[in-house]
């Protein structure tokens, strides 16, 4: 089977360009590496029909099927420079398909006299037709056949390969060159031989073997993994039982079940229910089972499942990133900015041990929940959407809002502080002065008015070596980026500028139709509060605390599992003695300066606060004499902690505030936070901003939909009075005269 596909692919590659030219391939053709020279393939396997496929039947006339099949097969092959192999110009490709039909068999014979026509007989296999319905794009060119290119591994083999948990089901997948696999669900990936490309990362075998956690929910475009050039064909000693089944050019990867309970978030926030599972509407031919729980092989793109398509100009943009240190990504929202930044990060991790990521987008942060600007040092490729990898920041500041609109100067000084931290502590790490850690800076999508000014200020602070800008208006017809384009403002030509075209809005719309930015903010926040961070460093290093690991050793600490069996309201909180543990409380956000001291307990109840550690001791910023001991240390209208002398560690939910006249003495707070206890001893400052806990996080959905009875702070139904709605702004209202 493998060789049959490979042979056909090679045939396609060899075809005269006229018959197969992809209209979408345009600009990058010149830059793409020349097609891989065809290799001789053994075809003995090819003639053996598939036992699996035979069961299915098809009503379609063979000729029509063949047409579709050829064009679809041809699509992935002609675009070898891409990691992901999907194009959207369906109609044009249909036309090309006809050409491909007539010319393809000729091509086969022309280059491979001893790869005889039996190859084609495989096409007539009635079973295979069903897998290629006319519409959807092919995502996985790999088609699993048990004990031929898919092998369940035994316990001793799993242990011998050094895989994380030998109890979970594990399969070995044998990939031919350039074969692709699209996965939905969660799993661990280990590369045994050869290398694979995935979301910008090139994953290769390493000693000790690296395990990569893949999270592929339907709520974001799913990743497509592609086997790339194979390394030297070496025997895998641990798999002696199977060595006879691999050919030299095969890439070997191991997929293992991954149980993190991240699916449980769907039970907390029903909007994301079942995103790690197949949509119930999906018919079986588009999906195949690998025999693993929690992960599916997706054959075709279909309704509700979209694959990540990496635009081809990105590759060539990455190539130029090898020698530089500071990269900045900017552009309007929904242009693919965050995705590009993540992909660039993965790419850089191919040549660097660690890469820093500076998040300036308060709304959709990659590693932290929203409302923070954060500097993270990342060691492992990021293979999933943001809510699947909440990570403790190396250094961060809490703004308390999803937009810098109400506190632009605080925002800028926070970024200034992070940029300084990068320059001083991260760029040349303390523990390894030879290492140079590059940084990827992601900016916000607010590109007009004040937003544009802020982004410009950030650029000046960061002093990037290279800027990637997603252009919205006036996209060039050539479609690619053009390096070092002269800017109108001649004062800032210090860096290389690349203009990138936004990801096609159509693709974005399709992928994000069901999930808005607000939905992703909700799931990120809930994911953060349900996350379980490793409370002791791994591998264990005896001397240092977690805080030191983050700050001095620049370790990446990412949540490993999620505790979702209990809703937040049933999770045991910390009881915090305000007198002992809290030095000051600040409120930020428009209108917060009007909150008087008598009302602070009420305001903090149910609030999300940032946990800040400050170098300035309490005595200077707050005098205990102003209020009774044990009351909440708050002074009306005080500025937030100075970013230069403070840092945020994470968020907490104050789920209860004791009444002031408590019999135990001072005020006590009941607090939920996923932060390891280690870090809590330093966080003596609380900052409450404009962020709120989403309603999903306030509910208990264990027994089905909640009863619609009055609960504190929750109200069902709409108030009867006029003006009982929250303010709503219409910006697209037209005058009649505009009709």
């Amino acid at each position, binding site marked *: 089977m493998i060789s049959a596909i490979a042979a056909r692919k090679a045939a396609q590659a060899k075809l005269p360009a006229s018959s197969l030219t992809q209209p979408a391939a345009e600009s990058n053709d010149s830059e793409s590496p020349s097609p891989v020279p065809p290799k001789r393939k053994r075809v003995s396997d090819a003639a053996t029909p598939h036992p699996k496929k035979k069961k299915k039947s098809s009503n379609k006339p063979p000729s029509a099927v063949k047409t579709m099949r050829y064009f679809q097969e041809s699509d992935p092959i002609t675009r070898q420079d891409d990691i992901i192999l999907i194009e959207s110009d369906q109609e044009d490709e249909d036309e090309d398909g006809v050409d491909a039909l007539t010319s393809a068999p000729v091509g086969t014979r022309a280059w491979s006299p001893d790869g005889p026509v039996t190859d084609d007989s495989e096409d007539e296999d009635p079973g295979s037709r069903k897998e290629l319905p006319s519409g959807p794009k092919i995502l996985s060119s790999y088609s699993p056949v048990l004990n031929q290119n898919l092998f369940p591994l035994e316990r001793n083999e799993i242990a011998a390969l050094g895989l994380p948990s030998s109890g979970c089901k594990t399969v070995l997948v044998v990939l031919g060159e350039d074969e692709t696999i699209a996965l939905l669900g969660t799993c661990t990936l280990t590369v045994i031989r050869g290398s694979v490309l995935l979301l910008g990362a090139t994953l290769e075998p390493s000693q000790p073997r690296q395990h990569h956690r893949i999270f592929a929910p339907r709520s974001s475009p799913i990743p497509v993994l592609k086997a790339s050039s194979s390394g030297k064909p070496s025997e895998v000693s641990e798999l002696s039982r199977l060595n006879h089944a691999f050919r030299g050019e095969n890439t070997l990867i191991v997929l293992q079940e991954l*149980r993190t309970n991240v699916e449980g978030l769907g039970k907390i926030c029903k*909007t994301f229910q079942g995103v790690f599972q197949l949509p*119930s*509407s999906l018919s079986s031919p588009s999906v195949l089972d690998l025999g693993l729980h929690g992960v599916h092989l997706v054959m075709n793109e279909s309704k509700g499942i979209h694959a990540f398509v990496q635009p081809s100009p990105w590759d060539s943009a990455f190539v130029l990133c090898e020698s530089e240190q500071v990269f900045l990504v900017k552009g309007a929202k929904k242009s693919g900015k965050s995705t590009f930044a993540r992909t660039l990060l993965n790419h850089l991790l191919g040549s660097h041990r660690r890469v820093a990521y500076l998040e300036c987008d308060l709304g959709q942060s990659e590693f932290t929940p929203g409302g923070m600007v954060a500097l993270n040092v990342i060691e492992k490729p990021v293979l999933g959407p943001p809510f699947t990898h909440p990570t403790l920041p190396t250094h961060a500041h809490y703004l308390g809002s999803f937009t810098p609109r109400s506190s632009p100067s605080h925002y800028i000084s926070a970024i200034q502080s992070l940029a300084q931290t990068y320059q001083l502590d991260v760029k040349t790490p303390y523990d390894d002065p030879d290492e140079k850690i590059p940084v990827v800076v992601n900016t916000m999508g607010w590109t007009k008015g004040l937003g544009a000014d802020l982004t410009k200020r950030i650029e000046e602070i960061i002093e990037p070596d290279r800027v990637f800008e997603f252009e919205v208006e006036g996209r060039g017809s050539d479609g690619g980026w053009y390096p070092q384009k002269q800017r109108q403002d001649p004062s800032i030509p210090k860096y290389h500028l690349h203009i990138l075209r936004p990801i096609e809005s159509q693709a974005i719309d399709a992928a994000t139709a*069901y*999930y*808005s930015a607000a*939905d992703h903010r909700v799931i990120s926040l809930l994911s953060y509060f349900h996350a*379980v961070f490793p409370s002791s460093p791994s591998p264990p290093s005896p001397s240092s605390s977690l805080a030191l690991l983050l700050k001095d050793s620049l370790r990446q600490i990412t949540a490993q599992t999620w505790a979702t*069996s*209990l809703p937040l*309201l049933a999770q*045991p*909180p910390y*009881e*915090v*003695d*305000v*007198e002992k*543990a809290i030095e000051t409380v600040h*409120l930020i956000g428009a*209108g917060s300066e*009007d*909150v008087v001291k*008598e*009302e*602070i307990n009420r*305001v903090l*109840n149910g*609030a999300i606060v940032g946990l800040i550690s400050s170098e300035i001791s309490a005595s200077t910023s707050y005098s205990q004499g102003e209020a009774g001991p044990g009351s909440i240390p708050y002074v009306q209208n005080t500025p937030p902690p100075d970013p230069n002398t403070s840092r945020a560690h994470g968020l907490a*939910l104050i789920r*209860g505030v*004791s009444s002031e006249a408590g019999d135990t003495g001072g005020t006590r707070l*009941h607090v939920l936070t996923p932060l390891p*206890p*280690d870090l*809590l*001893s330093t966080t003596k400052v609380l900052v*409450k901003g404009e962020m*709120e806990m989403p*309603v999903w996080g*306030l509910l208990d959905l264990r027994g089905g939909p909640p009863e619609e009875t*009055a*609960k*504190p*702070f*929750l*109200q*069902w*139904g*709409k108030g*009867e*009075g*006029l*003006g009982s*709605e929250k*303010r*709503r702004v*219409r910006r697209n209202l*037209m005058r009649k005269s505009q009709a």
Partner: protein
Amino acid sequence: MRLPRRVPWTSIAELDQVCSWIFTDERDLDSKILAINRLAAWKAITQLPHALESTHAILAVIVEDMKEEGSSSYLPLRQSYASALIRLVNGLVDPLQLGVYARSIAAIASQLDLPLWLVELRHAATHEELPSLELLREGARQSMSWLLHNYWLPTINPTTVTKADAPLRPLSPILKQYKDMLKLTTRDASLKSQYKQSIGQILKEVEKWIAEAKVTANVVAGELGWNVGHSADAVHTDEQDAKERWALEVFCEALLEKGGLVPLSKKRRTLPADSSDPPLPSVQVWKPLLMHVHSLHYEFFATLVNKMIYRLADDASTTELELGSRYDLSYASCLSSWMLWVIKTAESEDPDSTLRVEASTLLITTVQPGAEYDPSAKKMFVTLLGNLCSQVPQLQNALTTLRPFDFVSTADWTAEDVSVMEDRLNILLSLSVSTPEPDPDEPVFTQDASPAGLSSPPGWRLLGAGSGWKPCPIGVYSAA
């Protein structure tokens, strides 16, 4: 599932308290300041309903004004008053700008029963001379009174204040005007250009009526539940959808009256022999309107088809027939031909339209096997269902299996009946393409027993098992 929304008060009693602080004694400065502080705190907790925000803003200016006797400059005061009043009116009016085009603020204000001169004051304060202090003070007083009667009291005592019937002007005059004009132009094509503008005018008039009906839906429905669709943010959208649906339903009902889509005169209802389409003159008259509304309202065709089916079923049920009235077969057949036309049109625009399947399902379930029907109506239903399913083999299969109108009326159930039903069920199940994914056994996770070995930092104590802490809603303090 309906989601609640976050409010800053634990119970409505807290709102009541604030209300009494504000409105009990107009001269009581201290309690007004208490109210301002409480409203400021609530605002820091979560976004407030617009009426509360406005109350807060106006109250703050009033208190400032009361304190400020003898100040040398009153300009800041006038500006504060002006901006509070502008924001009040804008915030009330903006949510009701539901259409594509702006409606006049005065029109919306009159629907809200908002004093018109407040609208004028808003205009003056925004675009003209800043109004006098006297005028602004009076405006603030009237605004507070409006807020008391239209927000505070109805919200605190939901049942005591009954709403006046929302005036929704009748649609039939607009439809009649439209029909007459279209009849003219279809008979004499030379008139087309002459009437083009007035027809456009009428279509706009229809659009205006739908926009008004949407606003009325707000009041008529009293409390519209909001369904949670895909997105938590979709709350607004869903609410809007419900209003739009209501408006479209009223619109469709008017269209289905005799003299609407189906002509009054029975002669004119004669269907063309060669197709299942409605009579050609009717199509010529109504098509422009239907397409126009469809282009602006995505759900229009679906709503129309739904209403048609209910109308057909209601008319046919003999129990519903009043004494003396007879089943109007020609009306029913003409209406069903319109239904097929609508479905066909929808499909020609969007090949993926599921309208046909939905209509068939609804028809089968609405026309109950047990109900008493006029015999000619039964025949009509069979033909209609046959027509509906004729192009779709899958539906046809289902239809032959179900035979929904071969009414079996055996009082005694036998084991055979059950087996027949089971057979049918199996056939039907095999027709459906997708089978729901069985929920795989969720891996059982033990709750992370939390770092028991690690000591908590000073002042922090985890209330784990044995502490006496009990789960309770967020915002409630359960002492442990």
